[in-house]
């Protein structure tokens, strides 16, 4: 069943009433191999969209297209159109530097810089020139830590190395780092896969709190996580976007046979 060829269009409603990001007919190729086939999807203002699907289905690839992180991969080619607030982000005139400040990303493995906890979060505001003086920078850093729910744990040791924190704390540090440049969208690529259940619960709570302020797209292997945190869910299969819908609908009454098989655990 995993190798079933699908040419049918996506089932369900890909549109959002208040779209922040609109992806239309996106194809991604790694050399000869096509990783994403004609995917169209909206991500709305302040909503959490989770991408689920078996390994190698292209959900991470699609996520990384949304802030052009795939640019750093050689022989990766993208066709189609992805717009942020109606502006094509793959337009040659588009500068990736401000784009990535607007669309932040949190990776699978926590990757703090080998610098102090403070500098980790202050780095983004510094390179973008967000703070005019030390007080403003301190404010931004503290606010970011508070939003990431890490302030109480790190406020007394801001000068220590970010790599000395626990895995869960490191991941929240990475979220604080992303928040510090005031993004509009946060992309999360399996943010909890390297964390224990308690740290995972922390992050999920955090996503819940951030929702509304930010549009969030999250790739996850945990269907229960998708069910808990997201408003809408998109199911990918071998590079196709099979089904999109309200999270509740996807998990209770999936319309596509493949979605049904995946969420009931017949493969994945």
């Amino acid at each position, binding site marked *: 069943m995993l190798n079933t060829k699908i040419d049918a269009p996506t089932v369900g409603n890909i549109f959002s009433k208040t779209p922040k990001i609109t992806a239309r007919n996106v194809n991604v190729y790694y050399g000869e191999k096509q990783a994403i086939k004609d995917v169209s999807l909206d991500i709305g203002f302040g909503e959490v969209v989770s991408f689920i699907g078996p390994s190698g289905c292209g959900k991470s690839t699609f996520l990384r297209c949304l802030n052009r992180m795939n640019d750093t991969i050689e022989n990766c080619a993208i066709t189609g159109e992805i717009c942020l607030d109606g502006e094509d982000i793959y337009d040659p005139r588009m500068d*990736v530097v401000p784009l990535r400040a607007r669309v932040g990303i949190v990776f699978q493995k926590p990757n703090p810089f080998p610098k102090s906890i403070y500098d980790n979060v202050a780095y983004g505001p510094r390179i973008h020139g967000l703070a005019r003086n030390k007080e403003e920078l301190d404010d931004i850093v503290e606010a970011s830590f508070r939003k990431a729910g890490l302030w109480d744990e790190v406020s007394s040791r801001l000068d220590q190395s970010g790599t000395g924190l626990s895995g869960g704390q490191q991941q929240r540090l990475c979220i604080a780092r992303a928040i510090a440049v005031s993004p509009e969208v946060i992309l999360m690529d399996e943010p909890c896969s390297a964390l224990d259940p308690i740290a995972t619960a922390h992050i999920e709570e955090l996503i819940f709190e951030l929702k509304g302020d930010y549009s969030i797209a999250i790739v996850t292997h945990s269907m229960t996580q998708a069910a808990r945190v997201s408003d809408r869910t998109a199911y990918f299969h071998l590079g196709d976007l099979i089904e999109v819908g309200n999270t509740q609908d996807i998990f209770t009454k999936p319309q596509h046979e493949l979605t049904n098989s995946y969420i009931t655990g017949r493969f994945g």
Partner: protein
Amino acid sequence: MIKMSAPMNSDHTPKTLSPTLARERVAKSLKNRHLNEGRFLSYGRAAIGTALLFLMFLFGSILSKGTPGFFQYYVTFDVYLSADELDPYGNASAQSLFDGNARAVLRDGFFNLLDVSGRKNKKAAGKILSEGAEIRLRQMVVDNPSLLNTTQTIKVAVDDDIDSFLRGFISRDAPEDDRRINDTTIAYVDSLQEMGRINYLVSDYLFFGSASRNPEMAGIKGAFFGSILTLSICLILAFPLGVGTAIYLEEFAPKNKLTEFIEVNINNLAAVPSVVFGILGLAVFIGIFGLPRSIPLTGGVVLALMTMPTIIISSRAAIRSVPPSIKDAAYGIGASKVQTVFHHTLPLAMPGMLTGTIIGMAQALGETAPLLMIGMVAFVVDIPSGATDPATVLPVQIFMWADFSERMFVQKTSAAIIILLSFLLVMNAAAIIIRKKLERRW
């Protein structure tokens, strides 16, 4: 494709071994495995032991041969610093002292001590003193003219033939015509020894002297400064260029046929014999660009060419070892490529780059052949004061000394080798310290 053996008959079904049979076979193979592991371990230990033995032999032999080179024989006696002889113009000016007869003053004091009379005896006794003795006496007066017309105790080196005789390299049993010092001289040396006037002391000439045909006066100071100047030029040129090339090739250059071609060539350059770089330097820098020969500037440029491939290769390896997750993190919050490289990649790669650079510098320090090609083998008595003064370098100095016939140069050569090796050890220690200091965990 793995080809499975066909089943022997139709009712054959493949199955795994029973636990008891499996244990039995494991036990059987275990003994063999332990034996193999033990054998491999002992090979390794034997290899390391042999290497250590060679190393110990090498260092032992260098140290035992070279240590005497750090010492030489000095003779102590009183001289009357006659103003008439030393300061003929009576104004204690440098010119006056230079024109004065220091040799006569020195010999008078020396002959007084030994009670020498007669032209023949004076000639024999005079052979004991080094030619450097009068230079030292003159320097003493130049430094402090108030010493004129006083009696001073002076300590000067003995001539290299006497030094070799005292070390036992010249036998007194050999027929007089076959040895470089005659019986009269030997008699004077013996009486000096009886008086306790001859001392075996740390050689100041070795450290503070320059190139000289008189082995008792020869030292490494000039070559040492030549080496430092040459290496500085080499570092200033090779480090920024090498690191810059590595960053560009690794982070910015498109991967195409051209960069691949450049890469292959850089790797090849690292293996080019160093003498070829010397010929290149001779043809291009001296021949075409008209740089003067024998100067540290030219030497440094040639050595920089030789060191650059090493620096580029190790810098690229260091850059490649920076985890991509750190770069992703920087790109992810909107750092540009240049910011990512300079804020994150470069600081993390720096320890590796510096290690490579210091290894390259150590290579350059020990390099002789390319410098011979560009004329740094010149006999330079002056200490070079700048990168455009003629100079020689430590390994070339060693090479020249090893070629001289006087017996005493053998010890000087060994001593200079020890100094060069210590220089290398200091550089390598610096490499380790820098690496430890800059190393950061991620």
